[in-house]
């Protein structure tokens, strides 16, 4: 085999390998960079909730959820200075909110607990019902 042929083969394999490695790493880097979404333009939106019903929501726990504990933590959002009344077949509590969000513990009995949570804010009344199951095996 001629000397030039040998050199050509070696150079060719080296070049091919470099191109292959470059392609592979380039593809992988593209996958990673595609996951980073950069918003160069962001238009802020401000939503003012004027309806108190929209401002009252229970964020936890989920309705129809199950617990093994004898208390649950009820959290939610309600207009500031609302009177929150929470009542079930075994207990009740009432308190005023000082912030737009609230959180409190509430006792639950074994079996099904139907819990009524009412927010009184001025003359408006909003209520939500949560059903929580306490299972103690």
């Amino acid at each position, binding site marked *: 085999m001629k000397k030039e042929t040998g050199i*050509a*083969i070696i150079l060719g394999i080296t070049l091919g390998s470099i191109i292959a490695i470059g392609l592979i790493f380039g593809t992988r880097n593209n996958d990673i960079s595609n996951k980073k979404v950069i918003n160069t333009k962001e238009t802020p939106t401000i939503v003012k909730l004027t309806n108190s019903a929209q401002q009252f929501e229970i964020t936890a726990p989920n309705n129809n959820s199950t617990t093994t504990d004898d208390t649950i933590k009820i959290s939610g959002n309600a207009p500031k200075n609302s009177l929150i009344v929470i009542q079930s077949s075994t207990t009740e509590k009432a308190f005023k909110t000082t912030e737009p969000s609230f959180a409190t513990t509430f006792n639950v009995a074994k*079996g099904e607990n*139907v819990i009524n949570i009412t927010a009184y804010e001025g*003359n408006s009344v909003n209520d939500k019902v949560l059903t929580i199951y306490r299972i103690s095996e």
Partner: protein
Amino acid sequence: MNKKSILLTVQKVLAAATIGLLVYVPTFAQTPTKAKITTTPEPTAAPTTKLEKDVQLLKDKIATKVAEMRDTSKSTKAGTVTEIEKDTITIQTEDSATTKITYDDTVTKLVSLVNKGADLKFSDIKKGDYLVVSGLLIEDSLTATIIYKDQQFLALSGKVSDVQKADFEITVITTGKDTYTLDIESSTKQFIFDYEEAAVVKSGFSKIHVGDTINFVIKKPGDKTTTKATAVRTLIIPQEYFTQVEK
């Protein structure tokens, strides 16, 4: 070097580059995968006496059940009994869906919450009973680990529209615009919101007035058209609270 030999050399370089690509791309383009590790159970000595055989049979039955349940999801269902068979109960939930509950005396615990947590037998369960069942859901059948015989309640709020002092009854219009006549009995737990102390305190029938706001709990009537019920719990928020809030 003449043109022909240069051309030949370039062709060889390209051919070799192609070979290099074909070798490296399949090798380095692969992504690693995790190996799955499994374990095999160790064999145990065979039982000899009848008692040992019975115990081993029970252990095997429990182990088989547990193994069956391993990849299934735990679920809680509540509903009214519509059918009872040998070891299966069908309940209808609030959304009118039906669920088959499988009872297994080796794994299912039965408790009556209606009878202060007393033990319950499978034969005590009747059509119309309200059950809360927790167990492992396998397709659309629930193998129960615990069955509670329970009572359904309604928890509502509204305004007092009438007070019948002679009969110890009050009429309430709820936030959902339903009207209920509530019997206030000696068993009713009555409370009032003391807005000056910001606390819930015990109360009595005499403190209920027309126009007061009320949160109350009743046993769910069997007949949906029934509007009269005994109050289990009441919490009055006096109208004066809302008057002082407005000021």
